[in-house]
């Protein structure tokens, strides 16, 4: 180690602040790109966790069958509200024709407001943000809801209408 600096060599300030500013900026950008790549790894881990969780969960157990109404108590174009599969799950049953019943979860897929049947337009309406669903298959016709209404599978057993399960996604032809 030299005791005295050579005056003709690099100036003192360069010895004190030895980092070149351009290099420092470059290193900062490179560090930032490394951080972004690590964030990308985090996103990948999140996606894999969702997939593994979905795989481990497997198929949901079949829901119990539950009588919800009798056919004669609902005129054509009328509705009946019921809860299925738990008392905390409100559903709406619509008789769209003499022999055709459809039922959906009453919770809007946007922010869970209760939807109601608009008989004049033959559609289900969410009054909170004017979201409209098709009464035929529960698909979104208009508004902010991101997904169709979950459909309650209804079977007609004699005079009794029985809920036997819930399907997600728009599948036309879901009727009793």
């Amino acid at each position, binding site marked *: 180690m030299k005791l005295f600096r050579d005056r003709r060599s690099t100036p003192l300030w360069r010895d004190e602040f030895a980092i*070149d500013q*351009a*290099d420092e900026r*470059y*290193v900062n*950008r*490179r560090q*930032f*790109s*490394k951080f*972004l*790549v690590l*964030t*990308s*790894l985090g*996103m*990948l881990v*999140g*996606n*894999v966790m*969702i*997939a593994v*969780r*979905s*795989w481990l969960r497997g198929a949901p157990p079949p829901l119990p069958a539950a009588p919800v109404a009798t056919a004669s108590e609902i005129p054509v174009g009328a509705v009946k509200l019921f809860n299925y599969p738990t008392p905390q799950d409100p559903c709406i049953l619509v008789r769209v024709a003499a022999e055709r019943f459809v039922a959906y979860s009453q919770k809007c*897929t946007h922010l869970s407001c209760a939807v109601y049947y608009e008989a004049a337009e033959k559609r289900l309406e969410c009054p909170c943000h004017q979201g409209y669903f098709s009464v035929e298959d529960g698909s979104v016709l208009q508004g902010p809801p*991101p*997904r169709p209404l*979950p459909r309650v599978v209804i079977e007609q057993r004699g005079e009794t209408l029985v809920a036997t399960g819930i399907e*997600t*996604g728009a599948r036309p032809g879901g009727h009793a």
Partner: protein
Amino acid sequence: MSAGSRPGSRGPGPALDGALALIAVLLIVQMWLLTAALESDLAGHHEVVWPAAIISAVIFAACGGLYLFVEGLDREAGRPR
């Protein structure tokens, strides 16, 4: 004298900027993919989660590849690590 500071040479800086921009775009796509996969899974559409995970892995590989590319340029240019 390193290639990055050689007169007339632009060094790996522009390459890093390009890689950084591409990584940022890929990351935005990956964020959207994560939220869409979560949304679909919670909605009961479980069939989309594995393709989403695979695409996310491809995007991560692309990001990692871009970063390794910049690292390789650094090694060539003798940039500070």
